[in-house]
């Protein structure tokens, strides 16, 4: 719906609707008073500003889960590093996990600062062709907490999308927090004009994770974000001593592959649990560079190929259908 404000709930009837401000979905919305007064709300100019800013970005991908701790940030970081091995392509990560920003640490740039110029905020560069923006760069120290309600979070996400001067990019990867709330609704709404190529959904094999991930896929379908595919992370652990494989997070209900089938979305791969991945993330090092021949590195490479294929088959910005928000 074109007339849904960016701070509105997902079931907003639309500011031009006769029910504007009057239905139960309107409860608690900041626009309710204005809507029910009958005065039409102007469209949020940010959506068009963001569309203009992101015109030079060829592909925009969200990394979602619904469940926390499944490896969204770890996957985003490795996807970015994997894509950036092609030096002719420019890659960037936007970290919108405002309460728990992991990307700076995982990419080895904790403590770096961002700067503003006439053309906007400059992201932090890891390599010539790999840059990052995260609230982590704006915090004063490791104990500094972002204790914000939804509207303030939405405001910063809008700024990140509108004001970061990415330049020309082949891929913009958006790392998200778990859940289906303000951050996710805002990303979907603010990127309405610019378009989202697809979402990569990360899960671990156990049902307690799949419960949340199904909801995330439902969210994507609700707001019209194409699901590129499901990745099952922490999928099996091989004991370094006796080489026996065990399922630390048992796929009692069929794991990510079955869940993807049930939800009618593609399944694009499994990544085994390798303790060295966690260590690399903690120390900000690239797992690919350190342990390129491990089963996990090979799994990553195969999944990254699937993602490249999807993007090269995908339509351009202008042709991406409107997200249904």
């Amino acid at each position, binding site marked *: 719906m074109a007339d849904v404000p960016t701070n509105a709930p997902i079931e907003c009837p639309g500011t031009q609707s006769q029910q504007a401000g009057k239905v139960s979905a309107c409860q*608690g919305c900041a626009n309710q008073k204005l809507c029910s007064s009958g005065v039409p709300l102007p469209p949020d100019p940010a959506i068009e500003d963001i569309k203009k800013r992101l015109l030079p970005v060829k592909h925009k991908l969200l990394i979602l889960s619904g469940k926390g701790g499944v490896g969204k940030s770890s996957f985003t970081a490795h996807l970015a590093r994997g894509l950036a091995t092609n030096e002719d392509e420019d890659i960037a990560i936007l970290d919108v996990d405002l*309460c728990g920003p992991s990307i700076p640490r995982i990419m080895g740039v904790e403590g770096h600062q961002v700067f503003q110029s006439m053309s906007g905020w400059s992201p932090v560069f890891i390599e010539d062709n790999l840059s990052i923006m995260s609230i982590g760069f704006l915090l004063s120290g490791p104990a500094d907490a*972002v204790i*914000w309600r*939804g509207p303030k979070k939405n405001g910063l996400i809008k700024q990140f999308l509108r004001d970061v001067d990415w330049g020309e990019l082949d891929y913009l990867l958006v790392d998200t927090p778990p859940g*289906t*709330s303000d951050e996710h609704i805002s990303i979907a709404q603010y990127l309405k004009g610019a378009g989202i190529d697809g979402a990569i959904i990360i899960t671990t094999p156990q049902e307690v994770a799949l419960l949340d991930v199904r909801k995330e896929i439902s969210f994507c379908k609700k707001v019209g974000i194409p699901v590129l595919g499901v990745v099952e992370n922490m999928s099996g652990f091989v004991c370094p001593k006796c080489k026996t494989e065990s399922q630390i997070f*048992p796929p009692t209900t069929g794991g990510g592959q079955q869940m993807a089938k049930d939800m009618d979305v593609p399944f694009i791969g499994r990544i085994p649990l390798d303790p060295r991945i966690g*260590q690399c993330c*903690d120390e900000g090092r690239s797992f690919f560079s350190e342990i390129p021949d491990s089963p996990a590195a090979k799994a990553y490479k195969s999944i990254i190929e699937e993602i490249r294929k999807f993007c090269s088959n995908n339509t351009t910005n202008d042709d991406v259908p409107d997200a249904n928000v």
Partner: protein
Amino acid sequence: MAAENEKADGKIKSVVLVLSGKGGVGKSTVAAQIALELANAGNKVGVLDVDLCGPSIPRILGLEEKDVHQCSEGWIPVHPDKNENLAVMSIGFLLKSNKDAVVWRGPKKNAMIKQFLSDVVWGNLDYLIIDTPPGTSDEHITVAENIKNFNVTGAVMVTTPQAVALGDVRREITFCKKVGIPVVGIVENMSGYACPNCSECTNIFSKGGGESLANVTNVPFLGYLPLDPKLTMSIEDGKSFTELYSESATASAIRHIVRPLIIS
């Protein structure tokens, strides 16, 4: 207005929050184990799941098919046991299907949490365990504001050992200090995995980070919980781990975590 502690005929002696900041560290698992341990000891225990987007408590406690009902005084929580030692409330009970997503912005989540805190007919409870989502946002701020009139024992912080988790937990501790919630201590979960074949222990998510964080932030360290396949399967199957495996080292570690929460 903060929710009242006395709801109709009920009084809650102790409120314990289970927090992390980081997702996927085992908050819901630990919250459930604390609740089960206290209930098995004969206490009246309520479990309130305020993770509205990802409610895990119904599955973990084996209550997925249950509904909640309303009476004139409010919502009746789910009582899984005949003695009604355990009372559980979660948005999970209000969803028709497990595919249903709760896609709400902050204000609507806040309204639901306030309702959970003021309109559930808990009855008299010895303990109310509140399971939370990761982060330091609407849910956390709303809970903190609305439990001001309750007897708050404090927060149990759950972390996994690796640095990426500790960063978020440190921020959660800052949150607790800002809103005046005492930190009972830190639990280091998923701390080591013993191969079921050869018993070799691998520190899959590193080790010792939780204890170091406790030292750095000057809060008590409550103990390590290993990655125990029996605990993981109990969670998957919705069974009570401490009842089934009460002699195990993991069960002993859980009892150690619960000890500082016990009110006289």
